[in-house]
């Protein structure tokens, strides 16, 4: 098991969880999102090849109303 931070909150994941399966488990597969891991943007094409490591800091963002 690995412990990661997602949007500021602690989450425990199975070992070798890919970004793709994380997004799936969060119900975000059909959402327009962008992802950063440890301050590095991860492009969509790499979601299935990157696995999450212990203490990774993950940010998942989207567009919201603003001026």
């Amino acid at each position, binding site marked *: 098991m690995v412990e990661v931070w997602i*949007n500021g*909150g602690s989450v425990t994941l199975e070992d070798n969880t890919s970004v793709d399966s994380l997004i799936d488990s969060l*119900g*975000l597969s059909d959402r327009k999102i*962008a992802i*950063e891991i440890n301050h590095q943007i991860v492009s969509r094409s790499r979601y299935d090849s990157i696995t999450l490591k212990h203490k990774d800091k993950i940010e998942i*963002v989207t*567009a919201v*109303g*603003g001026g």
Partner: protein
Amino acid sequence: MNSKNFTIGTRSFTSRLIVGTGKYKNFSETQSAIKNSGAEIVTVAIRRTNLGQKPSEPSLLDYIDRDLVTLLPNTAGCYSADEAVRTLQLARELLDGHDLVKLEVLGDPTTLFPNVTETLIAAERLIQDGFQVMVYTSDDPVIAKRLEELGCVAIMPLASLIGSGMGILNPWNLKIIIDNSMLPVIVDAGVGTASDATIAMEMGCDAVLMNTAIAAAKDPIGMAGAMRKAVEAGREAFLAGRMAKKAYQASPSSPKTGLLTPQG
């Protein structure tokens, strides 16, 4: 130059009203207000996704037709160049490589006045990274010129504080910025009602950006239509050229001759 069109960076637009998407009752109201405003550029903010959200819950982007409007991701809430650059790099990833952005770096949480030194740093880094930067700034003509020299694509001075609805508090500074700028000048922040938008356009602004003036009106969809007309009227008046002001000499609109009682 075609008076109907104006250009920001590599994109051309017809509508000179840019609207925000914050503070609406729901996405449906946001969508109707955008439609009634006629805006072709719509701002959005970038925030952490709500992780508790159900997959079926609507999201803002479902209500915006990107074939009809250009999204303008902003950096609202950023207080440093680092945060602003990071936010817009995420926005570019989120929006499939979209490069037209609104940079704002704030300096004070009460007034939301821009931090112009951080804004300059962020603008330079974003431009080097290939972004087309529309930049929110104070109404300081020297800073506006500096942002132009850095390679921004539009200068967006405040008329008054964000969300204040106080209108154009320093028309003289705004006029200096307009007169000296080779770039589109867009009043961003402070418009309260239709006449404020008209005044900005009559002064020669290229466009007006607003959010709260529409979203916080009693009838936002109605106000969106009023703002569309206000911006159009102001632009047409600017192009038509107003009459000279005559402070001490009245001039009758009707003939002075042929009066029933000739004046001696």
